[in-house]
């Protein structure tokens, strides 16, 4: 039986190290050494491995859960623990290395259902000289119903605040080749909160730090102003299935975020674990597969200034144009000058969040509501390419008074005039 075998090894290795004075790992003690775990709650415990060693660093490549009395491993935790040896001394010293153990409620319940009651969590520490020590934590599973606090009493833990990921307890995704180490969610200007106008284009960026190779599965979720002004209710905006395999750090761009309602939005990225939590506590928001592995940012959508009029009825609209195609727009009463802008996405879209760049345009005085593009503008464009155009109107004091949406167009010199008429 494997646990007996390990127990034997621990005892044997104790004799071994006592006999070998040159060995550099003296001992490993884990705290807590015994743990009682309720299968109706997630397990999340900060353990500390106290490794007494000198000279050489030690490594434990992974931890492993075994069922007591069985040969089979229940779960591997591919999270290496490095223990740095103290420098400048050959006298063995105790180095404390923390590790957070996490097991989902459904994982624990599945083991319980399979008849598992006693578990050992085992780590082997080894140094460059070949000395090794094994240590284990004994875990006993119990089935204790979760107590729900009476409505009038304060909750046993503070209510979760929306999204301060920094407050979330740490967790390791275990048993997979992919180990996530850090998630950072922000907008493309490196901010955690963004103010945008209604209808603006908006994306967020998730920076994922990880080790190994594997599939990141997760959900972009949004709570819009229809619910954020009470209890935020998150809905899935987009599923993510992305292979992480090359740089140990990658950026994932969110889908286009809704900005059609004014008010506060919350954006959340939830990593999907292999199992969802089970529904036992009706107060819990179970929309996130694991709230422990999620992070939130927010944005405010403001109505565009009522002083800025939105322009409609522009031509050309979603069609081709050339040197003979007139650009037309409605007259704006207070305007002193118009900007006709032609924009495009940058050719080298290396950034994760490309923005439309102004390529060229025209300044036109008040009174003009129609113009041809002209050679100066057309010389900046490429036949066949797709662009966007818009009109922005300004007062003499420089205040913007009106603007149109971005309108897609295609430049096809000499081939479209007849068709567009």
């Amino acid at each position, binding site marked *: 039986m494997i646990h007996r075998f390990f127990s034997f090894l621990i005892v044997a290795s104790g004799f071994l190290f006592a006999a070998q004075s040159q060995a550099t790992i003296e001992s490993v003690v884990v705290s807590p050494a015994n743990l009682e775990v309720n299968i109706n709650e997630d397990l999340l415990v900060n353990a500390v491995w106290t490794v007494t060693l000198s000279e050489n660093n030690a490594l434990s490549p992974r931890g492993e859960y075994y069922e007591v009395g069985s040969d089979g491993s229940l779960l591997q935790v591919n999270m290496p623990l490095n223990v740095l040896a103290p420098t400048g001394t050959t006298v063995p010293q105790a180095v404390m290395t923390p590790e957070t153990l996490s097991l989902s409620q459904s994982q624990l319940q599945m083991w319980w259902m399979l008849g598992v009651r006693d578990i050992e969590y085992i780590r082997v520490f080894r140094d460059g000289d070949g000395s090794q020590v094994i240590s284990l934590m004994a875990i006993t599973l119990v089935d204790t119903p979760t107590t729900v606090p009476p409505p009038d009493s304060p909750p046993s833990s503070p209510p979760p605040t929306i999204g301060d990921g920094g407050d979330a307890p740490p967790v390791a995704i275990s048993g997979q080749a992919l180990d996530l180490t850090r998630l950072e969610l922000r907008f493309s200007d*490196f901010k955690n*909160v963004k103010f945008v106008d209604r209808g603006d284009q908006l994306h967020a960026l998730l920076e994922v730090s990880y080790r190994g*190779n594997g599939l990141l599965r997760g959900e972009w979720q949004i709570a819009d102003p229809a619910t954020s002004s009470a209890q935020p209710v998150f809905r899935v905006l987009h599923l993510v299935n992305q*292979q992480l395999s090359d740089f140990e750090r990658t950026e994932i761009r969110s889908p286009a975020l809704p900005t059609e*309602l004014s008010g506060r939005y919350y954006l959340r990225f939830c990593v999907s674990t292999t199992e969802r939590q089970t529904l036992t506590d009706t107060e819990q928001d179970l929309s996130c597969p694991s709230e422990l592995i999620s992070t939130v940012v927010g944005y*405010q959508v403001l109505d565009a200034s009522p002083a800025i009029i939105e322009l409609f009825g522009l031509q050309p609209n979603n069609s081709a144009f050339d040197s003979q195609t007139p650009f037309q727009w409605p007259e704006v009463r207070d305007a002193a000058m118009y900007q006709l802008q032609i924009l495009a996405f940058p050719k080298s879209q290396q950034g994760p969040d490309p923005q439309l760049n102004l390529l060229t345009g025209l*300044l036109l005085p008040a009174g003009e509501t129609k113009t041809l593009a002209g050679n100066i503008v057309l010389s900046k464009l490429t036949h066949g390419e797709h662009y966007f155009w818009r009109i922005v109107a300004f007062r003499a004091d420089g205040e913007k008074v009106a603007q149109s949406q971005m309108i897609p167009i295609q430049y096809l010199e000499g081939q479209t005039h007849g068709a567009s008429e």
Partner: protein
Amino acid sequence: MKAKVVLLSLMLLSNTSLALQGLDLAQAENLEVALINVDESQLEQSTLRAILGQYDISALLSREKNLVRIQSPSALEPGRYPLQIFLVEPSGNQILVYEDKLDIYRASWQKGIHLRTKATQRIDESAKEDFSHTVDLLSESALQSQARFSGRNTAFHSAIQAQHRSDSQTQSGKKLELAHFKVGANKKTAVGNLGFSLGNQTIQRQGLVFNGFDRRGLSTSLESESGRYQLNTFYINSDPALAVDEQLLPTDKQQRSYGSTLDFSVFKEHPERLRLSSGFIKGQTKNLGTGIIYLADLNEDNAPTLGGSTWHLAADSRWLENALHLHAQKAHSQFDSDGIGVGEDKQKDEATRFLVNVNSQGSLKDALAPLKVKQWNVSWQSQHVGEHYYSLANISLPRDVRIDQSMLNVGWTRFSLLLGQTRSSNNLDAQPDQAKQESTKSQVQLQYTPLLQQSNPFWRAIGQPSLSLSAAKTNRNQRDSDVNLVGYHLDDTTHENHITATFQRQKLNWSLQHGVVRFENAAAAFSDPLLGVFTPSPDTENRFTSLSLHVQAMKNWTISPVLQWTDYGVKDSRNAQEAFNAGLNLSAQLLKNRLGVHLNYNMNKQDAVYAEGLATQNYQRRQSTLSLNWQAKEAKGQKPGVTLSLNGSWSENENQFNSDPLVKNDNYQIVLGVEVFWADGEGQ
């Protein structure tokens, strides 16, 4: 004969000085330019054209004999713009007759403010205990304000973005959050443009030391008029913060940093030939902040204080009119990464980055024209980061890794091809007690946008298509003998294949995406009495399909459905996970700008089989929201607007573990709200 550009003369007479032209938009000044050595008869026969910055300003020109008058370009932002005036002869010849730079400023205050405040009352809900952590009555507000004065020699600016929520259900957990604030001033001096600012400091750089970040603090800057040199110094909080009473200024020693950046062009006439840059940051961090979650052994209670200093030197050299770009960067750090006063002391380490990029700009614009190539780009990059290299401004940079990346990108009018390879390896110091692991990723990507007759009814119906295909293969391995160091073998291959089709037409955009990722593990099992038993993870296959549409069904009506499906299976096993997501978003303006309705429905379903079928889990969530907004009073100018809203949300969760009874909960809430909105000037 083709049109050609000839520089005839460079002369000017205007209403100001002969030095750099300045134009005050606040005074609505016009600019007058005398074209002295241009023959008046030539002017009579030709057409005048002018470019200011990126804009054709020909429509702003008027002429009286040799005097050209340019109407005040009030639609431009203050700044320095190149100005060119051309004569276009009847033959089509274009002659440059004037060229200079123009300083446009506005010596008056421009201000803008947006204020939105909303009070809501939950008028009904499924059960009080469903919402025990939230209150029924709350208020929330958002404020955005900015002001600036852009004088010719002195400029001032201020900006603030703040939000308040009475129940503290915010990202920081505080009622009042300051998302952004900044006040500052700039003054032109004999040595350059001197600047000072207090508030959110954004460092845009992307490199070994800085990875683009935004923190609260102070900064000063000095930039030469020509941009030849630029110096920035900063004194900031190390971690992001949002609360109004949290790290407004860098006062906490354990969470503040200081540093500088300097850029300098060696050659004045050709600044692009050699641009040197350096950066430095020193300080400490608790390494926590809004939007960040650590999945390792850190949390607020036991997070150690990390700290140290990091600097870098970099050189950028561009040749052939920017067609060739060479970059070299070396960074050095002295950093205590395991907690100050804990474990090891500070450790020194280095990082380097080299880049060569050749592309179809400038001198090489037509290099591949015989092959009808419109654009191309070849690059090679090598990055090496030591095991103990850290930077406070780039804390998540992967360490102990060397990455070599090469890429070729070729684009024709309708077709583009990308070929790339990335190789990475660790254990750079060849430490005998660590394994040497290597990874190679090869990828190919094709994109095709056919040129179609717009009159074809089929393509008119489904939209202009664009097709993208990509395939990638990643191999990871390590020496067999290293199994005795780490306790496992590493030998696996991942194949990723994706196809995406997007279609675009007026009032309808839609896309279809399908991807397959196969993971093949050739690693052997390993057993060692001391290292334990290693069982390689099994082969897996993951498929992903996504369909999304955006339809403007009628004027003022848009519908955006989304369908996604993923399937994750383990080879030779019954273990599998399947997820389905369907969403429908409907927006309508029932009365233009007066009554709007927004409806969302989302259904998310996940089915999983574990432990070879011994355990199953089926989860399903349905959720809908309805929002009705009636603009009772329209905001006009400085008069506030009032909007009344009725919002309802409903959600239902179902979860079944094996054949246990289905656990189900559902809840709803109905919220009434009144919002007052006021805006004046421009918000940003």
